C-alpha cells in the first residue's frame, strides 16, 4: 500500500544503514537510544533493524506498551468487576491474557464472566445502549492516542443519556515517564525515538520541556523500516553536531501542534493525576482521571470494591525490561516458564511487549 511499501524498500533501508555506518564511525561514545512505543519495539524486531546498526548504536526499549505498564492492581479490579454477573466488561484484545494476582480476564470468561473484545470504545457505548439491564464497563487503558477515543465515547454516552456505561481508567501520558527515565544516570539514554501515534495527538512541541530540562535529543519517528533508520540517523546527527532538539521524522502524520481536536477531547473529559506505572512506580501527573463532571462514568468511584493487595508474579522482571535495565533474554523466566502460551508477565502477553517481540523475531 502507498505510504507503507515505499518506506520498506530494501535499497532505501540499506542506503540509510550505510549512511549510519559512516556517520556513527567517529562518535566519541556509543549511543543508547530508547524507543517508547510498542509498535516501534515490534517494528524494530520484525525488520531486524538491530542487525543493520553499527556497534556504536544500541537500541533499548522503554515503557511504550500500555498494557505492560498497567499495574497488577488494575487487572485485579477489572477481574473483580467481571465476577459480578450484572457487569459486562469490554476491552481491547491485548488485556485478555494479562495476569492479575490470581487469574486473567480470559480465564474469568471461560468460567462464565461476560468479557467482550471491542474494536472501539464507541462499540462499548453501543453495547450499553442495547443492554440497559447490564452495567457495561470499558477498560480504559492506553496513552494519549487511546484516551481521546475514550473521551469521545464518554461524551457520546452522556449525549445518549446512558446511566449504565462506565470506564475503569488507567490512562497514562508519555512525556512525564520519558522525563523520569532521562534523568536516571544509570540508564544513560542518549536520545529518544519518540512515539509516532502518541505524537500525532500531542504534537512535536510536547517534547520541548524534555529537551530543555534533560538535554536529550528527541526525534518523532514513523513505523516503517526506513522511517526508523532515518530517525536513528537524525539522532546520531544531533550528537555529531552537539545539538539537542526535537525533530519530526514522521512528518506525513505528525505536526508540531498535534491533533487539536483530540487534545480538546482529552482536556474536556480528563485531568492529570499521579499514576502508578509497572516498573517505574508512581509518576506525578503522568495519568489521566475523569473530571468531576464525568464522575458518574467512573467505574472506580461508582463501583468501588475492596481488593486484596496485588501480587506481582514471582520472579517476573517486567519492571526492569520496561525501563531498559535488562534485555528480555536476561530474565530467568524468559522462554522457560514465561512463553506466549503461558505468559507470566505482561511484556510476554502483549502484541507490543518487548519479550513478545524477542520471542517472536529472535534475538539480534
Amino acid at each position, binding site marked *: 500500500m502507498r505510504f507503507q511499501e515505499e518506506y520498506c*524498500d530494501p535499497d*532505501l533501508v540499506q542506503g540509510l544503514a550505510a549512511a549510519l555506518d559512516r556517520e556513527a564511525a567517529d562518535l566519541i561514545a556509543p549511543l543508547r537510544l530508547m524507543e517508547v512505543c510498542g509498535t516501534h519495539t515490534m517494528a524494530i524486531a520484525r525488520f531486524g533493524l538491530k542487525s543493520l546498526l553499527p556497534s556504536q548504536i544500541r537500541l533499548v526499549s522503554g515503557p511504550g506498551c500500555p498494557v505492560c505498564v498497567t499495574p497488577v492492581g488494575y487487572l485485579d479490579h477489572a477481574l473483580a468487576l467481571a465476577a459480578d454477573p450484572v457487569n459486562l466488561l469490554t476491552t481491547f484484545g491485548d488485556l485478555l491474557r494479562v495476569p492479575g494476582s490470581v487469574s486473567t480476564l480470559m480465564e474469568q470468561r471461560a468460567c462464565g464472566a461476560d468479557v467482550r473484545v471491542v474494536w472501539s470504545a464507541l462499540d462499548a457505548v453501543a453495547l450499553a445502549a442495547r443492554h440497559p439491564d447490564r452495567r457495561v464497563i470499558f477498560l480504559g487503558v492506553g496513552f494519549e492516542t487511546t484516551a481521546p477515543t475514550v473521551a469521545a465515547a464518554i461524551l457520546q454516552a452522556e449525549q445518549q443519556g446512558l446511566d449504565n456505561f462506565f470506564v475503569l481508567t488507567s490512562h497514562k501520558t508519555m512525556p512525564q515517564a520519558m522525563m523520569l527515565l532521562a534523568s536516571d544516570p544509570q540508564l544513560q539514554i542518549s536520545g529518544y525515538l519518540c512515539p*509516532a501515534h502518541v505524537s500525532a495527538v500531542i504534537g512535536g512541541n510536547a517534547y520541548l520541556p524534555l529537551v530543555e530540562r534533560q538535554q536529550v535529543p528527541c526525534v518523532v519517528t514513523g513505523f516503517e523500516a526506513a522511517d526508523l533508520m532515518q530517525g536513528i540517523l537524525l539522532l546520531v546527527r544531533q550528537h555529531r553536531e552537539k545539538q539537542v532538539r526535537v525533530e519530526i521524522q514522521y512528518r506525513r502524520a505528525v505536526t508540531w501542534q498535534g491533533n487539536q481536536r483530540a487534545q480538546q477531547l482529552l482536556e474536556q473529559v480528563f485531568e492529570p493525576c499521579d499514576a502508578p506505572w509497572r516498573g517505574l512506580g508512581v509518576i506525578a501527573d503522568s495519568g489521566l482521571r475523569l473530571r468531576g463532571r464525568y464522575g458518574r462514568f467512573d467505574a472506580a468511584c461508582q463501583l468501588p470494591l475492596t481488593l486484596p493487595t496485588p501480587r506481582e508474579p514471582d520472579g517476573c522482571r517486567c519492571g526492569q525490561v520496561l525501563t531498559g535495565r535488562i534485555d528480555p533474554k536476561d530474565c530467568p523466566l524468559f522462554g522457560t516458564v514465561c512463553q506466549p502460551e503461558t505468559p507470566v508477565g505482561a511484556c510476554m502477553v502483549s502484541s507490543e511487549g518487548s519479550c513478545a517481540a524477542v520471542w517472536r523475531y529472535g534475538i539480534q
Partner: protein
Amino acid sequence: MCLGVPMQVINVSDETIIAEIDGVRCEASLLMLSEPVTVGAYVLVHAGFAIARIDADEAEETLRLMREAFGGEGSA
C-alpha cells in the same frame, strides 16, 4: 493497543468513514479529525478512530530526504 494503521478512505459519511488496507475494511469515527477527508485520501486509524490525515506532500518530502541522506536515487 497503540497499533495505528495507515488506511485508504473508500467511503465517507457524516461521522464515519470506511477505510481499507490490503483488502481489509473497517469503519472508523471522524470525531477526532477537524479537517474533512475525501475518498482516496490516506488516514491513520487507531482503535476505531481516524487520528490523523497522512499528508502526501510531506510523505514525498520524507522520501526525498531519506535518499538525500545517502545520495541514493531509488524508485517510487
